[in-house]
């Protein structure tokens, strides 16, 4: 069920990326799609009745059934890179807005590169 939900989130993100004209809304769509993909990767490592992959005084032996820690580690990397992409993209959008006065894709294409 959670896998279909994550796919739905990714599909919403793809729809937003294809249909929106506002650059900020494109970044929001990209983030939604990314959350869907991250959720899907984590769900691949889930085991029925699996424990959190951390040894503690309650779950104190490596022979217990833990969920797969590898997808979680990969998603940790992916989240950090997502933060980097979002910050850089927003900075680029701010710069575009300063020089062109708009962040709408259609208007930017109409104006072309003529206006410096």
């Amino acid at each position: 069920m959670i896998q279909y939900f994550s796919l739905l989130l990714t599909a919403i993100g793809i729809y937003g990326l294809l249909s929106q004209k506002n650059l900020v809304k494109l970044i929001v769509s990209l983030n939604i799609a990314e959350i869907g993909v991250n959720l899907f990767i984590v769900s691949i490592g889930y085991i029925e009745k699996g424990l959190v992959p951390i040894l503690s005084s309650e779950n104190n032996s490596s022979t217990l059934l833990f969920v797969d820690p590898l997808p979680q580690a990969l998603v940790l990397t992916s989240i950090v890179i997502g933060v980097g992409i979002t910050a850089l993209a927003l900075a680029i959008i701010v710069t575009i807005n300063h020089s062109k006065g708009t962040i709408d894709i259609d208007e930017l294409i109409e104006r072309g590169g003529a206006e410096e």
Partner: protein
Amino acid sequence: MKRIIAGIIALLFFFTVSIVLNTDSQTVSGVPRYGEFDLSERNSHSYVTKSVNDTLKEVKFGSTIDAETGSANFVTSIVINYRSFDTLGEVTVLFLSATGVGLLLGGDKKRLLSPIKASPVVKTAAKIVSPLLLILGAYVFTHGHLTPGGGFPGGAIIAAAFLLLVMVDDEKRAPALLKVLEGSMGLAYILLGIGGLLISGSFLQNFLPTGVVGNLFSAGLIPIVYSLIGLKVGAELSGIVDDFVSEGGDNI
């Protein structure tokens, strides 16, 4: 019209991947059924039992000495020990991103002033809360090998403390020392990696004793590297916040 086509493409994506999910995973090797697979068939089994190079034996919390990596948190042991090179790349990506934001928005600019003055109550409360947030961040990244969390969440909490100070005080800027901290922490990470190359024979390999699983001073390089990453990420994200609040300001 364009929106309808976009909707059709998104629906096609959803149904295609749903069909892949519904295939019989016994005959088609693909995505396993949700919640039903055997961990011992996967590579991750050797990460959980700490037997990538060592022999397979039971690891007990609080009593096993000198286990491979020695980290109680398996995710941390993958991120900082088995696949530390990935993390070095990840830190580099974040560094590049922060540099790009600084290049586009930074420079010697004055801060944008907030249109609403923060009340004295909020200012005083922020001054009390932000040191506590810094302590929480330091706790999260020094205990990365024992509890959930680690360098990246710890760094984000530290940046949140800075963001709180920026929001209540119109004069607050990031200290210039942050850039030095950021760079030197990244350098220290690479130097530790070269130390592993010289002592253990492989880049970023652990060369310290790993101690008892579950102790604070255990897991060799992991707490050290995660502290470096926590400080570096905290400085980087604070720098990004500082760049964003100063965008569009007048030149000094």
